[in-house]
């Protein structure tokens, strides 16, 4: 049977390194998928699309890191924004999706230039011998507004 467990890390300070330990259920056979999400935004209320932190995960008592990721914030659904003006420059001069909400979508103009696919877990096969996964998350954001949450989703087979 497949199951998903979620571990949340609350980030409240700049350059913070958080050590984490995830306890898996006792009947876990293996970890089959991982997904990491975060909801950070900077002091100008701009949704960040660049990296916001690093995550490292390893099976306890083994030296090998089995998962490492540069964590980025999830973009909102692209089709919330006007099709006729898909690209704008933000305050950092970066070109990206329009961040001002023009919700709901303007159906009448422009064209659908985005093709969406299902959000899926990163496929992996880890055999945790002692049911503990440990690691750390480093917050690399310097313009942190308030705090944010990093969610680690582990798809497991029990």
């Amino acid at each position, binding site marked *: 049977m497949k199951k998903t467990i*979620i571990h*949340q890390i609350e980030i409240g300070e700049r350059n913070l390194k958080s050590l984490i330990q995830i306890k898996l259920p006792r009947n876990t056979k293996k970890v089959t998928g991982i997904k990491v*999400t975060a909801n950070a935004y900077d002091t100008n209320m701009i949704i960040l699309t660049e990296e916001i932190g690093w995550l490292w995960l390893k099976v306890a008592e083994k030296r090998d890191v089995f998962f490492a990721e540069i964590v980025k914030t999830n973009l*909102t*659904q*692209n089709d919330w924004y006007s099709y006729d003006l898909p690209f704008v420059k933000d305050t950092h001069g970066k070109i990206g999706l329009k961040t001002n909400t023009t919700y709901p979508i303007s159906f009448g103009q422009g064209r659908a230039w985005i093709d969406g696919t299902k959000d899926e877990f990163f496929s992996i096969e880890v055999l945790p011998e002692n049911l503990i996964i440990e690691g750390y998350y480093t917050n690399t954001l310097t313009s942190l507004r308030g705090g944010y949450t990093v*969610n680690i989703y582990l798809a497991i087979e029990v």
Partner: protein
Amino acid sequence: MSYKHNLIKERFDLTISAEDQTFKDSFELDKNAKRLIGIALTSDRDDLMFYRGSQKILLNDIELFPEGFESKLLLSGLNVAPDCRMITVGELETGNGKVDISYTDKPHDLARFVPYRVTIYTFCIVEFEEK
């Protein structure tokens, strides 16, 4: 409810009337729905659901999505083909057809709260008895 191509599609609504709270409700699937194959989540305010929502969904005490599973991972936008918007859950026996949803709203600066609706669609297979 519609009943076409051996599939039963049902819709259940949950009204989120206050912020930073958990709303629970229980629904019953159609008696002819034998196997649950997928679900879909929508809202009248997709942006609020995206930033603020997380939920737990159970089918007869079988946990489909655990507590804290973010709603943004279950939402589909217009850029996803209609045929791909359902989240597949395999083929689960519906049993007595009880679906429990526990939706949690959590404040977020990018989406100010207004009351909104969360809708869960279920897709079930009807199995006809062979004679």
